[in-house]
């Protein structure tokens, strides 16, 4: 049920981000449902393959989409537990996301295009650092809640976590927001709307894709945005009213707010110089580390 909800609503979240940016720039912007139409249009198109590509190029987008969908199956929707949950599933989540990134990079290398290869190398280089930050952030959650699976953590959070460890959770939320921005190729790390190949990271990788493959990649990106927004919303707004429907509603509201916040950040900030990006990513990792150190798991040390 939660998974279906995420699959259905993920393009809407992307629409919310786009709409926020458009309104702040003084434009009306595309309708909220434009992302669905884009996906339908892409699915109806025929693919064109370059003669240098192999089967890897065709299979990778769908492998990537499947990996992200699998990661989404591990993510709790607010306080509702995820369809699949077991102790240690947070590691599987991180590795599924890494697998998705690996598949897209592989397809980019398969095209033999210089731009795609450059995008792939940058994406992987930043991905390594983002992964460190994500792992540290999840470890901090483990320390705060004492639970080893994402769904259990979400269940533990409402019980006064914000009263007991507000400082730690604020840092954690900041780190998660940064990870959300970098994993989804957002400003200040990457510009999703750029059309200059030299400055692109994520977009440069998918230049050669078209038709259903591009739809798979775009869909995967939307699901990933939903996944991180949902994680962040779970941490910042663990609302428990008792009625499950109300909880889910509150969670969806929080996710939409995260979308608006991403739009605000994108409108308000300039892109970082490429060389500063690793430093920012390292700062995210340090925020997560510090939040782990401050978490009240019996003092600061094990």
């Amino acid at each position, binding site marked *: 049920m939660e998974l279906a909800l995420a699959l259905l609503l993920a393009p809407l979240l992307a629409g919310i981000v786009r709409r926020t940016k458009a309104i702040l720039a003084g434009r009306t912007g595309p309708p909220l449902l434009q992302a669905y139409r884009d996906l339908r249009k892409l699915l109806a198109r025929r693919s064109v393959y370059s003669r240098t590509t192999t089967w890897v190029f065709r299979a990778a987008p769908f492998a990537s989409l499947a990996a992200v969908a699998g990661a989404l199956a591990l993510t709790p929707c607010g306080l509702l537990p995820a369809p699949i949950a077991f102790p240690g599933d947070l590691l599987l989540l991180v590795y599924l996301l890494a697998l998705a990134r690996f598949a897209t990079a592989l397809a980019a290398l398969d095209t033999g295009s210089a731009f795609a290869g450059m995008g792939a190398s940058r994406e992987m280089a930043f991905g390594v650092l983002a992964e460190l930050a994500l792992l540290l952030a999840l470890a901090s959650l483990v320390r705060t809640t004492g639970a080893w699976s994402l769904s259990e953590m979400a269940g533990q959070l409402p019980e006064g976590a914000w009263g007991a460890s507000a400082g*730690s959770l604020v840092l954690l939320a900041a780190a998660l927001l940064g990870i959300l921005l970098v994993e989804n190729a957002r400003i200040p790390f990457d510009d999703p709307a750029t059309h200059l190949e030299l400055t692109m990271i994520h977009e440069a990788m998918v230049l050669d894709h078209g038709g259903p493959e591009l739809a798979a990649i775009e869909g995967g990106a939307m699901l990933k945005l939903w996944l991180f927004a949902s994680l962040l919303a779970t941490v910042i707004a663990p609302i428990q009213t008792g009625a499950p429907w109300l909880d889910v509603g509150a969670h969806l509201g929080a996710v939409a707010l995260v979308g608006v916040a991403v739009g605000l950040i994108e409108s308000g900030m300039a892109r970082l110089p490429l060389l500063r990006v*690793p430093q920012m990513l390292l700062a995210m990792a340090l925020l997560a580390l510090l939040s782990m150190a401050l978490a009240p798991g019996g003092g600061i040390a094990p």
Partner: protein
Amino acid sequence: MNSLLVAAAGLVALLDFRLLGGSRLVPIIRAAALQGALLALVSVALRAREVELGFAALALGSAVIKGYLLPALLLRALRQVEIRREVEPLVGYNLSLLIGAAGLGLSALLGARIAANAATSTPLLVSVALFTMWTGLFLIVARRKAVTQVLGYLVFENGIYGFGVAVAGESPLLVEMGVLLDLLVAVFVMGIIIFHIQRDFSHIDVDRLALLRDVDEPAPPGEAP
């Protein structure tokens, strides 16, 4: 109360990372000043139960000195010497941050052990104070400019102050006051020395001060390596 203390300790640690990763001189001087003032206020907050007027006045005085007077002196020295406003590290920023992370882990371990032995109510503050000392020492060793070395000295003192507040809550205030005055004079003198170094050598790069040179002798062609 306790969560406020945790937040303050977290802020002090964050400022440490800011000091390690910052590339501009003026903001990191401000960061060190904020850290000192924050620690002085923490020392008052820790004893909110039985606060005495004299203690509060001394703590506020130290907050003013560390938060306003010392940075003002440093900024003045900076204005006088007219140097580039960049830190010029010997160890790169990213590596500095990583070494800081290692330092945080180490001081967490050490801090927990110390806190277990000394009867302290705030084990977190012990660790953060140790981390601040680590940061100060690292800044002294790994930065090129004389100003940053004075700054590292200040941060180191912040750490010692925090450690004293956490471990020896009833530490004699007179000693604390004496240290503070020493510090004030030291920064004052160092500001003047930096000015003189700048005037004689036209830079304050301590790495290039290795060569002795007589005043009357003409300067060697090209700057010494």
